[in-house]
């Protein structure tokens, strides 16, 4: 071909079609009429045309009018002697849109042929698509993190905060700028604050997860120094070789508040139940108090009569006065028992008590009811005593409720009325057990399942709260309250309370 000078040809050969075609680029040389002087092998892949057949053709025929119109300025610039580039998306003839990076360089074609253009076009479409996907993905992730309700914080392997989302800002009161670059320990109260670096190192050394992979309820610290209850979940990830952590922080303060309110409501209900129980006990207690008062008044009257005599017997008078003292102390102790019983048990009043002393505390409160119903009480307790960590007032309330139910069950029941109470440490050594057995007619099977439902009652009076409250109290102590029929007739209520282990100590975890 005329236009195809040998020097140009040999120069074109220098590109080495073999090696150029291995790159994701195409190379072409145009003369000053934009006719193809050289086309690399890549053209076959792009345009489906043998590069040899493109020689001499106008570049517009190859890349299409659209692309040519977009690029014509660049060709012209290159022809005028200045290198220029194009970076962007163009519609190439049969190849759809391509994202390309092209360099257009002035190119000497030889003496008589003047200057042409050499174009080197890199097809960046796959990279471009990848980058766009990455950008989309990043945007998606960022949006999620930015708008998450939970705090999301990332740390590097030293525990230094790398990112801090808006929820974390709200939760802790620091801005992201303030938080980033600081040690995560700034969000922790003592003693975790000082130990946290150790926690991280412990994990890096042992790979023994303590919090990673599992959520945990912990207390964090806000910027203002106030504690905040959170649920924390931590995951580990690697950027390159570098270990990072991400923490998800869920604000528990509203849940904790709801829990506290529910607890208070239960306390109030239990307190109301105690008041009701006290009302029901009042008749019996009135009798209990009335007895010593009767004795006191009668004895005082006797003293008055004796003093009217000519020679009152001092010994008799002294005995009488002693009796008055004893009986008024008896009245006082009844009043004290009643007051102890009704006093609102606050959640903090946890003490170490054994079941025997609790049973012994409540039996006097019920002595009149027992007597009136003609119920005999047998109390077995096994030694050694076991101690439980309990709220005494609440457990005594449970005992009073269950004992009163048992008495009521036997009231008017023909046959023996026997109340058997047994307390012992179970053979497993873990549980203190209190059984309360009555010899009443038993609970109808239809009622068994509903026994602990609130508002279930078979009594004409009463709210049906008693056993529901009893069970919730026992369960809050980590124990259980069960009922079962006895083979000989009657019913057994079994209270299990966890035995106190003095050596048990909570370990501090990361």
């Amino acid at each position, binding site marked *: 071909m005329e236009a195809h000078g040998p020097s140009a040809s040999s120069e074109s050969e220098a590109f080495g079609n073999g090696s150029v075609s291995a790159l994701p680029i195409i190379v072409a040389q145009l003369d000053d009429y934009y006719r193809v002087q050289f086309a690399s092998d890549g053209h076959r892949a792009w345009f489906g045309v043998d590069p040899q057949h493109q020689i001499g053709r106008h570049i517009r025929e190859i890349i299409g009018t659209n692309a040519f119109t977009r690029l014509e300025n660049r060709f012209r610039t290159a022809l005028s002697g200045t290198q220029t580039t194009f970076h962007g998306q163009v519609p190439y003839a049969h190849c759809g849109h391509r994202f390309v990076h092209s360099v257009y360089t002035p190119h000497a074609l030889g003496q008589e042929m003047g200057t042409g253009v050499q174009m080197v076009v890199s097809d960046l479409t796959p990279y471009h698509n990848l980058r766009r996907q990455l950008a989309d993905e990043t945007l998606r992730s960022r949006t999620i993190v930015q708008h998450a309700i939970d705090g999301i914080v990332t740390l590097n392997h030293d525990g230094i905060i790398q990112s801090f989302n808006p929820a974390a800002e709200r939760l802790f009161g620091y801005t992201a700028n303030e938080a980033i670059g600081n040690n995560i320990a700034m969000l922790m109260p003592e003693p975790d604050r000082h130990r946290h670096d150790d926690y991280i190192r412990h994990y890096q050394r042992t790979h023994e997860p303590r919090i990673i992979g599992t959520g945990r309820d912990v207390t964090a610290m806000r910027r203002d120094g106030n504690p905040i209850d959170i649920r924390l979940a931590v995951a580990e990830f690697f950027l390159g070789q570098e270990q990072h952590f991400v923490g998800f922080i869920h604000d528990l303060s509203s849940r904790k508040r709801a829990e506290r309110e529910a607890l208070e409501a239960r306390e109030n209900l239990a307190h109301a139940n105690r008041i009701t129980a006290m009302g029901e006990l009042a008749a019996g207690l009135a009798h209990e108090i009335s*007895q010593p008062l009767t004795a006191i008044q*009668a004895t005082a009257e006797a003293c008055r009569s004796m003093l009217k005599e000519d020679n009152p017997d001092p010994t008799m008078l002294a005995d009488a006065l002693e*009796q008055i003292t004893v009986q008024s102390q008896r009245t006082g102790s009844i009043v004290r028992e009643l007051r102890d019983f009704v006093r609102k048990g606050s959640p903090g009043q946890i003490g170490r008590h054994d079941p025997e002393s609790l049973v012994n505390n409540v039996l006097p409160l019920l002595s009149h009811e027992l007597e009136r119903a003609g119920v005999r009480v047998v109390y077995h307790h096994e030694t050694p005593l076991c101690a439980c960590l309990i709220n005494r007032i609440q457990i005594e309330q449970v005992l009073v409720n269950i004992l009163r139910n048992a008495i009521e069950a036997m009231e008017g029941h023909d046959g023996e009325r026997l109340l058997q109470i047994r307390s012992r440490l179970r053979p497993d050594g873990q549980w203190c057990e209190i059984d309360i057995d009555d010899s009443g007619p038993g609970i109808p099977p239809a009622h068994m399942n509903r026994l602990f439902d609130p508002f279930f009652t078979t009594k004409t009076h009463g709210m049906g709260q008693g056993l529901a409250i009893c069970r919730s109290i026992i369960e809050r102590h980590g124990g259980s309250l069960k009922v079962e029929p006895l083979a000989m007739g009657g019913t057994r209520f079994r209270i299990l309370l966890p035995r106190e282990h003095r050596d048990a100590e909570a370990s501090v975890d990361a």
Partner: protein
Amino acid sequence: MRDAPTVLIVDDDPAIRQALTLLFKSAGLASESFASGGQLLAADKPNGPACVLLDLSLPDLDGLEVQQRLHRETPGIPVIFLTGYGDVPVAVQALKYGAIDFFQKPDFDRQNLIQTIRQALIDHQEQLEADAAKRSVQALVGSLSHRELEVARLAAAGHANKVIGMELGISERTVETHRGRAMKKLGLRRAADLIKAEKALEETDA
């Protein structure tokens, strides 16, 4: 000694028993005390006048039951109840069964109680005497002739000699003679005594 008027205290509370014993002692009244209805029922009762002071709520038998069994086993002993609060309906029942009175613990009027007990003891004393008289009439009535018994019964019912004579178809004078003999045999002196013995005469076969 057991012939003296005695208060029988029944209360399961030892403090109450002790206090009431002292109260009655200071009022010059002898007393015995029992911890349960069963103990009272099982005990030998005094020969003389007595009064039972019974707690309404007792461990073994309730007060009403004690009252009724006492009534069957030892008729005539007066019963006074001590009650607690809330026992009023039962106390009313006790009154219907013949209790003399009831006193509510703890702050009943002690002097009123003592007064009521004294009166009950006096009444019981009279009752015991009347019973004794009746028993002696009953013992002697067998010694009367048929006619003497007829005359004595009518006289005890309050009829005049004349009326009795007409009733039996005998003269007033004969009535007079039979009546005098009957009185003598029965150990009665006054007409009023005969009227008192009316029941004993009616219930007894000649």
